[in-house]
């Protein structure tokens, strides 16, 4: 790393001569070391999938969740430092709550995403702070339909049909390119997400992982964000394993 | 012809605007009493909750609250304050238990309740309490309070809307005031229970805020024993 030792990477208040803020790059590194998170937007909903790496067999299943609810109509997937993400999630919940109190209606996903992005951005301006070591994929349904945004440590906030972050983000993006987002059904997308997570998982480097699936759909979940129910989860995971089996033969 | 104009009618005085000021206190009524014996204590309280007037909100609201295995709190007055007081004592006793590794003794609870009430001296809990149970020596004991924490240890006590009806009965039958022939011997807990039932039934006969059912509680070395007892529903 060229930046190390140059002195330009110690504070976010200092640019390097070629116009970088290294602390932001480092924060992105923290995200890239984390399990993959992918999301796909369909006509009537959004699917979130997370490869939750399990560092110890002694961990109870379903602990250290990486998919969280923000409001009834919003869910986020996280990659990077859990503790940093928790701060953003608390903030997002407060924003959603405050928006409801002021305007009497659910917060639009875009507004929430931009507010979280602004919050992230403030942590790239002052020498006494560090950027958050996590990215969020924010999914939900509002008056404009299903929405999918990704918010990064730099404070960027971009909408997508499908996106990914974490270790396997490039592989996941390659997989996603084949999907026709405007045609795929939510149930099929669910299986695809499960398949992609299983495909990009690196058996050699990371042994154990737990798949986490969250979804929101106008037809399937009545526009409420929730974790995918047990039976559908198992179906999707079985599909994913079968697809990988087939590909390997 | 001169027209005589009558003066424009004015109101003699401005009618006061009707202001239903917020009344923070309500008396939900009810009678509680306690009689301490040599190794037991009997506590009774009716379960009627009035609406502050002639209405009965519910017929089954118990006024007696168990604080420890050796101590109960009987409260009449305002139900909302009673509930707040009970919750507060419950948490504080739980803190005490955790800090000291043992439950608070009944006399200590008695002092603690006084402090709690006095702390709210300028916005009092509208509650009239009896703390009763057995003390560290195993003897029956009772304390009575006013709303701001004045208290006294007594052999027997009564509080609430039927207080005036019950207290002479207790003076006569427990303290044996002004009696020519004094019946000797200790009263057993069974005798005390039947006597306390008579007392609260009598209160229910004359006091409209007392009635429906009664909780009869006996505290002795084996713990706290509850019994339901029927009063008149009128």
């Amino acid at each position, binding site marked *: 790393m060229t930046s190390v030792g140059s002195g330009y990477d110690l504070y976010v208040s200092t640019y390097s001569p070629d116009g970088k803020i290294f602390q932001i790059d480092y924060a992105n590194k923290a995200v890239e070391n984390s399990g993959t998170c992918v999301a796909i937007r369909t006509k009537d909903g959004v699917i979130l999938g997370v490869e939750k790496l399990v560092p110890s067999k002694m961990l109870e299943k379903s602990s250290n969740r990486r998919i*969280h*609810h*923000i*409001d*009834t109509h919003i869910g986020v997937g996280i990659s990077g430092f859990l503790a940093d993400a928790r*701060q953003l999630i*608390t*903030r997002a*919940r*407060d*924003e*959603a*709550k*405050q928006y*409801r*109190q002021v305007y009497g209606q659910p917060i639009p996903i875009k507004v929430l995403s931009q507010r979280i992005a602004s919050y992230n951005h*403030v942590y790239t301006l*002052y*020498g*006494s*702070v560090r950027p958050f070591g996590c990215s969020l994929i924010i999914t939900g349904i509002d008056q404009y339909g299903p929405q999918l945004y990704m918010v990064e440590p730099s404070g960027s906030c971009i909408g997508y049909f499908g996106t990914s972050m974490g270790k396997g983000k490039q592989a996941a993006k390659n997989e996603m390119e084949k999907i026709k987002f405007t045609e795929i059904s939510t149930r099929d997308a669910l299986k695809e997400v499960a398949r992609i997570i299983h495909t990009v998982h690196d058996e050699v480097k990371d042994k154990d992982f737990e798949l986490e699936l969250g979804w929101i759909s106008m037809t399937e979940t009545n526009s*409420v964000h*929730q*974790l995918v129910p047990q039976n559908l989860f198992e179906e999707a995971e079985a599909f994913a394993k079968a697809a990988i089996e087939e590909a390997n033969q | 012809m001169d027209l005589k104009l009558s003066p424009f009618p004015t109101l003699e005085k401005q009618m006061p605007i009707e*202001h*239903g*000021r*917020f*009344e*923070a*206190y*309500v008396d*939900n009524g009810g009678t509680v009493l306690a009689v301490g014996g040599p190794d037991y204590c009997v506590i009774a309280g009716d379960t009627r*909750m009035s*609406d502050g007037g002639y*209405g009965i*909100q*519910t*017929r*089954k*609201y118990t006024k007696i609250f168990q604080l420890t295995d050796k101590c109960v709190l009987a409260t009449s007055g*305002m*139900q*909302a304050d009673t*509930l*707040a007081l009970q919750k507060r004592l419950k948490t504080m006793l739980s803190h005490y238990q955790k800090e000291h590794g043992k439950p608070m003794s009944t006399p200590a609870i008695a002092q603690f309740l006084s402090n709690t009430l006095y702390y709210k001296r300028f*916005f009092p809990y509208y509650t009239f309490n009896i703390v009763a149970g057995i003390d560290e020596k195993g003897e029956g004991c009772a304390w009575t309070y006013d709303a701001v924490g004045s208290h006294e240890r007594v052999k027997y006590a009564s509080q609430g809307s039927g207080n005036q009806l019950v207290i002479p009965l207790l003076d006569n039958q427990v303290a044996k005031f002004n009696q020519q022939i004094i019946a000797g011997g200790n009263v057993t807990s069974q005798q005390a229970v039947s006597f306390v039932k008579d007392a609260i039934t009598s209160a229910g006969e004359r006091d409209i805020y007392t009635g429906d059912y009664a909780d009869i509680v006996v505290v002795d070395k084996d713990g706290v024993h509850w019994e339901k007892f029927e009063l008149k529903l009128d």
Partner: protein
Amino acid sequence: MQQHVSFPVFGQNDYFNYKNPQTLENRMPVVDAKKKTQDPIVTGTSVIAIKYNGGVVMGTDMLCSYGSLARFNSIQRMEKFGSYTIIGAGGELSDFQSLSNTLNDLVTLDHCIDDGSKLSPSEIYNYVARVMYNHRNKGDPLWNSLVVMGYQNGSSFLGKVDLVGTCFKDDIVCTGYGAHIALPLMRKAALDNPNMNLEQAKKLIEDCLRVLFYRDARSSKKIQISVANENGLEISEPIELDTYMWQSGEAAVKSFSQV
């Protein structure tokens, strides 16, 4: 004279609100000059409810009065909170709406926590009771009588909370004029028929609301009836009560005798 421009220096200004970084609400300025509710303005009248064999039924009319003026005649006075609870409110409408917002925030937070546990009727009842009591302690009451009902895990819940924080659970609960007029009728009906079914309970509520309409000048004949049972929660569409014909002259005298 040149104006000295001072740039905000981090550490001098509390950009991040270090004192309390967790919550957004605490950043809001505290408005100390507040007007306290000394008397209600727009009010609903009675709420009545009864447990039946397998659930709870509650009824209200849909009128909200401005003093003696029948101001709003189609206001729903019952709300669902979470999957198991309905609250019916009499008294100040705005205070109930404010309480509804608070409770919906609580329900949303419960959804976010997503631990498999859902807010129960008794939890909501206790929460509401504390909110009401804390407001009365500040001398700023929420001017309502609230009936909380629900059904969860095979058991019914019915309780009442008022503006000073008085709260209790019972099989029959009425507020306002309902406590004077409907409550005795309902207690009698429950005594005569201890195992009331849903239809009978609904009929009883409807009959009592009719009696209230006849005698309570702040009531209306447009009502709603809600039910909590094993099928979940249901708040009915507005129902127009059948009452006697309000003609003048002989017809009215005749029909009055049928009341």
